């Protein structure tokens, strides 16, 4: 009887809390994308050049590509464990709108995987010789852009969750859709590096994220319903 | 004639691009027609096989 009185809002809150608790229990898993992020970025000076000016030029792009790959790597965790233990079916069957529940799960996933990337990014910006302003812009761009990465990624995982081995497939499906985030995000930092106004880039990035916020949960919910059936 | 094939010195670029398109379009067309033929005969054979079995039993 209690179930009927649970509002959608509190269901969403409960879902976020649950996912965060699970993530805290396995803190090692949480660290992996961040470590991957750091390692990938530090491979570039070794492979391209340690030259300061060149690193400054390529830095924003490298950091963004690495952030994108790190997000992609952690993406499967958003629905796959729940699919394997049957929780996902419960969510699909619940009386609450699935798109909002998906939104809650995406939020939890972003808190666990996106936020650590943002926190560590100033350090990587320093490694890439970015200026102080550029590092601030980098953080801002990541704050505005990574939600879109998680939201679009959730659609991709929703589509591929029924497939046993979906590693590369997920990247094929998702990466082309990440192009606008990459362009606006890296563009903002590059603009800040040459003392141009990064605001247009940031606004475009924010509007893309808001747009994803409006559409992606619906698409992921549809995708999940198809995959779970 | 030689002038035509020479394409004002751009022969390689012009003819390669036309060749790529021509080969892909022709291959696509022929292969899907061949696939159709194969499907018809394959499905026919399957049906024969089934009828043969039901007759025997």
């Amino acid at each position: 009887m209690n179930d009927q009185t649970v509002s959608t809002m509190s269901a969403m809150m409960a879902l976020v809390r649950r996912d965060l608790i699970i993530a805290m229990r396995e803190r090692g898993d949480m660290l992996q994308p961040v470590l991957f992020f750091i390692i990938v970025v530090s491979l570039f000076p070794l492979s391209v050049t340690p030259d300061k000016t060149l690193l400054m030029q390529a830095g924003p792009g490298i950091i963004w590509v690495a952030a994108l790959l790190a997000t992609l790597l952690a993406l499967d965790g958003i629905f796959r464990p729940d699919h394997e233990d049957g929780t996902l079916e419960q969510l699909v069957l619940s009386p609450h709108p699935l798109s909002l529940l998906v939104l809650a799960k995406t939020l939890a996933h972003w808190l666990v995987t996106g936020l650590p990337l943002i926190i560590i990014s100033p350090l990587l910006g320093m490694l890439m010789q970015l200026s102080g302003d550029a590092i601030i812009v980098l953080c801002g761009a990541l704050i505005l852009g990574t939600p879109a990465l998680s939201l679009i990624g959730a659609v991709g995982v929703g589509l591929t969750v029924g497939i046993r081995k979906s590693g590369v497939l997920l990247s094929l499906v998702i990466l082309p859709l990440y192009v606008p985030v990459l362009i606006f995000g890296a563009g903002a930092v590059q603009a800040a590096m040459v003392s141009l106004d990064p605001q247009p880039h940031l606004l475009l990035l924010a509007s893309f994220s808001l747009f994803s916020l409006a559409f992606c949960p619906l698409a992921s919910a549809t995708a999940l319903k198809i995959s779970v059936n | 004639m030689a002038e035509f094939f020479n394409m004002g010195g751009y022969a390689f670029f012009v003819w390669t691009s036309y060749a790529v398109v021509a080969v892909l379009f022709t291959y696509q067309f022929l292969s899907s027609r061949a696939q159709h033929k194969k499907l018809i005969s394959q499905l026919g054979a399957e049906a024969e096989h089934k009828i043969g079995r039901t007759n025997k039993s």
Partner: protein
Amino acid sequence: MTTESLNTSGRGKKWLWFHRFGSPAWVYGFANRWAMPIGIVALLLFVVGLYQGLIVAPPDYQMGDSYRIIFIHVPSAWLSMFSYFVMAASAGIGLVWHIKVSDLVARSIAPLGAMFTFCALVTGSLWGKPTWGTYWVWDARLTSELVLLFLFIGYIALSNAIEDRRTASRASAVLALVGVINLPIIHFSVEWWNTLHQGSTVTKLGRPSIDTRMLIPLLIMFVAFNFYFLSAVLNRLRCELLSQERRTQWVREIVHG
């Protein structure tokens, strides 16, 4: 009561022609009948277009004869975009109204769209070498085409990876719809990025008037490509219909007849 029944019957008649497109047997018959004639029309148009484009049209005063690649590049690029939109629309119709034929149309278009995108990329870079001096320039249109190719590849990979055919077409329909919403945004972002990085160094074909002897072959080739596309879709659709419906009565009748 009587008026109501009259009304519904009238509506039924009006929609009769439309309903046929939902019937696999009827669509198979249609595709079977028209694939070849349309293909022949395309072939004739290709012959005329190639004659006009390669022999009649004069060389360009700036680009010489290399501009003749445009006669196949532009229609390929058009069809690559057009087929993505048609594929997404068809997949979307299949997803919402559960029309099997619509799903199969989308499935038939996907490899064709990838082929046209590939052709547009190859011809674009072969045109770019004499014009820009390198095979690949990160120009907005070529980059958009490249992303479009990735979108097609993702769609094909997803629909091939899911074993159950119905789930596969429904899942890939969602992807196609997400892609089609994203495509204008991707296009805009690539253009934005390109103007920031390249400025106006890449000159486009923006000349006020184009010689009619050049315009005519372009138009003929354009129509020819579209006819080819239609014929190829029907050809592929026949195969998809047969293999999807292999256990139905109408397929048995066709196979034996």
